[in-house]
């Protein structure tokens, strides 16, 4: 009888611990939800005047390639990982080509805006290209997340950003307007899918192997000499 009573007290204590724990988890969830809602309701800057994209390479390079890409697009990641290093090492580093990246987040990609904004916040600290590399290399992971911000924040830390400044930038949605302007500019030049490239006076749609990029650069160089 005494044993049964002590068991009953034990079950009650166990139940109280379980309820307490679940309430604590629920409170954490509510607190996070309230913080997220506050962020979403914040002001969104729309002034993107003068933003020309993210540039790599010499100002005096004869040929410029403008890439319009979406961070959640598989072909863009494929291009960046397979062809990007050759372009950087053999065309940009030699001063032959200047590379310009423009944001073109596609509407069917729900996680893309967060990735583009994170890259812009990294660009604010001079680490756009490092962040771009992290985002493309890890695309298969963050693109499947319901809330990609957590994982992308890890990439921001990995590329050595000041995390306080990064968090402020993300919270304020500082570059939403700039990204939107970049997208609009892409539409204006005829971009409708990613990746797309403007090489000289030519708009090229779809991913390219390195040899094709070189052939198009040579074509642009020939046209400049004419």
């Amino acid at each position, binding site marked *: 009888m005494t*044993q*049964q009573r002590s*068991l009953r007290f*034990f079950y009650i*204590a*166990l139940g109280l*611990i*379980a309820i307490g*724990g*679940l309430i*604590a*988890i629920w409170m*954490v*969830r509510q607190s*996070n*939800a309230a*913080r*997220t809602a506050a962020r979403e309701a914040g002001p969104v800057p729309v002034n993107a005047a003068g933003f020309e994209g993210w540039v790599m390479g010499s100002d005096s390079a004869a040929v410029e390639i403008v890439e319009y890409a979406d961070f959640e697009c598989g072909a863009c990641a494929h291009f960046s990982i397979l062809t990007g290093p050759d372009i950087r090492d053999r065309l940009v580093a030699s001063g032959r080509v200047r590379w310009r990246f423009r944001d073109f987040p596609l509407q069917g990609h729900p996680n893309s805006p967060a990735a583009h904004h994170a890259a812009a916040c990294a660009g604010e600290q001079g680490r756009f290209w490092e962040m771009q590399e992290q985002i493309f290399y890890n695309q298969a*992971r963050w693109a499947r*997340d*319901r*809330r990609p911000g*957590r*994982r992308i*924040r*890890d990439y921001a*830390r990995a590329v050595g950003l000041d*995390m306080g400044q990064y968090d402020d930038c993300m919270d304020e949605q500082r570059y939403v307007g700039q990204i939107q302007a970049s997208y609009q500019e892409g539409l204006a030049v005829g971009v409708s899918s990613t990746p797309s490239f403007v090489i000289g006076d030519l708009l090229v749609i779809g991913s390219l192997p390195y040899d094709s990029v070189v052939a198009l650069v040579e074509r642009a160089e020939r046209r400049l000499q004419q």
Partner: protein
Amino acid sequence: MAAAVLALIGLLISVYLWLWKIGVLGELVCFDGGCETVQLSEYAYFLGIPVALLGLIGYLAILAVSLVGIQPRWVERREPTLALIALSGLGVAYSAYLTYLEAAVIHAWCQWCVISAVLICLTFIAALAGLWEVPREGSAGA
């Protein structure tokens, strides 16, 4: 009884980490961000299953066995205690491996994982202590 309480606390931690993993909770409460680094690493999965979910299942099993072991019809028998030792022993071994990964491979500490490792060690010790309390077969009532 101690094993049941420890398993319940471990279970709540696993539930918390698993809910975060599936995106229900938002940000993870963590001292220095190490929890996210660990939870987002490739080691946060075992055979494609989130480790947090494995912990949840493991702690649930330990809790169930602990509760069975304190029932009047089982309290004098050794089987629940032996099952508890086996389950928590497995948990200790896996937690030791995860702690090694945090220290030597990932280079980040997840406080929740460390707390869980301590809990599973205490559960194992409690289970071992239970072995001495349970009379051996044939000597019951001696």
